[in-house]
């Protein structure tokens, strides 16, 4: 009974709660409502994932209108997995933000902050769950518009220009997606993704379909910060409020990667994308360039948040490489990395937030001597950093290992070198931070700041422990990702 309603509730609960937050006015009450809603969304996502793993795809038709005409929500293993990632990260970040958000956001604006946060969550969940191409565009804009607001809420005025830059690039990206959806509707007369997947193979030679595919790839590429289109990302992450950086870094780009995977493998089909379009060579080159340039630039950053932003560009490069392999093992590596990167970046940004509040900044020099003053937070940052590098026993190692195996399967030796060099560069930029934390004494030693409150450490360590857990117990994460990848391949090709 109610289980059938879960896909709709997943999106509608945060959507309804968002304006309620505004009406509550009080930041504390808005926080309480947000975390309740986010936790409920997490429970729904877990239930959906279990349901999908047991019974296969769950379909919800809005208003009872059957698929090609009505809007359909279609939950299969791939998007149930992404839903679980997004809702769990959102809940952990909200746990952190009761105190974490109040440092940076004025109490009069906190209700607005939680309103935008829930709207952003709505948009991300909607993009993931929907089976309708135009609906996807609408949810994309909901999440984008609210994330521009969230980024602009930071105390630094550069947050405003970062949000503006993101708005311009994000709108161009979204409009490209709109053009693509229009062109697809022109030739097929349908907006339903499953229906499109059935109709498109017959239209493989149509120039309109090819143009639509190009527009779509570039549009989504802008949203997920694919290499030459990534310029908005480092500034947006650097100057947004810390909790927003953690939330967006761990969820927004992941959902965009999922959308790209969905369109390439499911809607257009891998034979169209890789055989009749030159997507493979483009993605390999851009993915490798992202890994190398993102990691190299990260080494030279003075602001650690910006450094983590460039490292995100590099990590997205690994995901693009996984997609470009056009094999089940490559896609599995990408999907596993969605989860693992969300855990490591979420943990790192939250740990950095703790340090920034106690030590007064996110510049490298601000962190001098943090190891003695904030031992737990520093340890969390180190473990997160090791995971980012891909050291064994951490989640980062699992996704790197899967990617390397997939690359070896395809016999792409140069890509293997790129991955190795990328990991070495990651060692370099994480080492700079570790050296500053542990081997330099504080610039003004008499000012002694203590460890952060346990209520902030708990969410940080939750993510860091998850990093280690998924580094040791891979059956669940890899198992689900593998089934999702097989389904995307075996599905309506």
């Amino acid at each position, binding site marked *: 009974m109610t289980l059938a309603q879960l896909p709709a509730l997943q999106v509608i609960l945060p959507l309804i709660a968002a304006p309620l937050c505004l009406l509550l006015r009080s930041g504390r009450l808005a926080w309480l409502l947000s975390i309740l809603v986010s936790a409920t969304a997490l429970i729904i996502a877990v239930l959906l994932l279990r349901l999908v793993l047991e019974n296969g795809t769950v379909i919800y038709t809005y208003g009872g209108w059957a698929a090609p005409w009505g809007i359909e929500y279609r939950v299969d293993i791939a998007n149930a997995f992404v839903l679980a990632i997004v809702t769990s990260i959102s809940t952990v970040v909200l746990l952190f933000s009761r105190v974490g958000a109040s440092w940076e956001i004025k109490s009069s604006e906190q209700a607005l902050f939680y309103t935008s946060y829930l709207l952003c969550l709505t948009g991300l969940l909607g993009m993931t769950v929907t089976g309708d191409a*135009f609906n996807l565009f*609408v949810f994309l804009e909901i999440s984008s*518009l609210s994330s521009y607001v969230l980024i602009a809420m930071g105390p630094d*005025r550069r947050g405003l*220009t970062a949000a*503006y830059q993101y*708005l311009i690039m994000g*709108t161009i990206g979204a409009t490209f997606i*709109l053009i693509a959806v*229009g062109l697809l509707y022109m030739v097929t007369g349908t907006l339903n993704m499953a229906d499109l997947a059935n109709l498109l193979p017959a239209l493989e030679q149509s120039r309109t379909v090819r143009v639509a595919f190009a527009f779509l790839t570039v549009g989504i590429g802008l949203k997920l910060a694919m290499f030459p289109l990534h310029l908005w990302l480092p500034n947006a992450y650097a100057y947004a409020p810390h909790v927003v950086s953690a939330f967006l870094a761990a969820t927004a780009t992941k959902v965009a990667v999922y959308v790209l995977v969905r369109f390439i493998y499911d809607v257009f089909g891998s034979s169209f994308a890789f055989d009749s379009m030159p997507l493979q060579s483009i993605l390999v080159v851009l993915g490798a360039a992202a890994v190398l340039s993102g990691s190299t630039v990260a080494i030279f950053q003075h602001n650690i948040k910006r450094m983590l932003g460039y490292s995100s560009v590099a990590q997205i490069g690994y995901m693009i490489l996984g997609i470009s392999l056009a094999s089940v093992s490559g896609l599995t590596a990408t999907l596993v990395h969605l989860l693992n990167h969300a855990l490591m970046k979420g943990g790192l940004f939250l740990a950095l937030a703790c340090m920034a509040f106690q030590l007064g900044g996110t510049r490298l020099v601000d962190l001098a001597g943090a190891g003695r003053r904030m031992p737990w937070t520093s340890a969390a940052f180190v473990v997160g950093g090791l995971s980012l590098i891909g050291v064994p026993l951490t989640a980062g190692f699992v996704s790197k290992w899967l990617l390397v195996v997939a690359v070896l399967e395809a016999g792409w030796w140069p890509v293997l070198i790129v991955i190795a060099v990328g990991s070495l560069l990651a060692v370099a930029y994480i080492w700079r931070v570790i050296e500053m934390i542990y081997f330099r004494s504080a610039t003004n030693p008499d000012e002694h700041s203590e460890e952060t409150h346990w209520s902030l450490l708990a969410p940080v360590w939750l993510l860091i422990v998850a990093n280690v857990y998924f580094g040791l117990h891979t059956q669940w994460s890899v198992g689900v990702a593998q089934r999702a990848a097989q389904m995307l391949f075996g599905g309506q090709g």
Partner: protein
Amino acid sequence: MEVLALYNYWVVIFLMMTGFYVVIASGNLVKKIIGINLFQASVFILYISMGKVSGGAAPILRETIQTYSNPLPHVLILTAIVVGVATTALGLALVVRIKEAYGTAEEDDIHRQDESL
């Protein structure tokens, strides 16, 4: 002749490129928003054109009329127009805040102020 018959699509391409050029070339933040608007308007026209069925009437149910234009793209683009309005409003609000914080809405001046920090 076929090229001329598709004149609305030429309008779309012209508007799109104009808007895109303004976004890239202009240093004024408000002008960039105007460019984005032109860019989006071209897509609106693309959608509206594709709904037209030659010889079709407006999609209102009448006994005497047999062929109708397709109303769905028009409905879709109403949603996209609303999204466009929201984007413009948010963009302009950001420009106001930027102007308050930096005292200018010119991209070059803002970069100069950021770099001098």
